[in-house]
């Protein structure tokens, strides 16, 4: 897989993304 150069995400960003993903999963379950 081609990878682009990038700076690693901050821990806060990862936590936010995880929380958003979980929230969307809950939305899908209730859809």
């Amino acid at each position, binding site marked *: 897989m081609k990878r682009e150069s*990038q700076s690693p995400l901050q821990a806060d*960003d990862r*936590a936010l*993304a995880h929380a958003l993903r979980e929230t*969307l*999963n809950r939305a899908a*379950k209730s859809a």
Partner: protein
Amino acid sequence: MGWAATADGKEGDDGRVVPADRLAYGRPMTENPQPAAVPMSLDTFLRGVGRRAQVMAEIATRDREAALDIVQDSMLALTARYRDRDAAEWGPLFQTILQSRIMDWHRSRTRRGRWFTWLTPSGDDEDADPWADVPEQASSDPALLLERARDMETVLAVLADLPLRQQQAFMLRIWEGLDTAATAEAMDCSEGSVKDAFVARHACAACTTGGRQE
């Protein structure tokens, strides 16, 4: 019917199976936010992806019936054209079809409404940088941002208010876990527009601050 990914896997909250060797480690989101699970059959795949697709389409269209039509049409297209493809390809292929159908729906609406519309939202310009008008985070308080990110009503409302291209990049990268190449292909745009760290940081900012700036 189950999943073929691994006998030791565990079903996640979204119905996908997380291979056992990935459960113990929190992989950085820059690699792939969702573990890849390979469905055993096309029916299994469609059952797993259906509700997520419905939420995506409904956020993008704000029209439940239109969203249902888009999702069903996308599923039929995947089944008709790609059922014999490798199961690992179904996810990216389905998202390419789904996002294309969503774009078609928006184009159709734009054509129908052009005589009554004074201004087309700039964020829906297909050629524009999808992240050009994302605001900076209004707060740097991680606890406050997490609280907002966990509030379903807030997240759905803010996502619905994002320009379509931001919605798509966010859904594909953050929720579906497609890599940058697959996301760019599904959105028919350059990989530079959907770089991991860039998308993640800006999407999180958008979703926790109130969306687009006018």
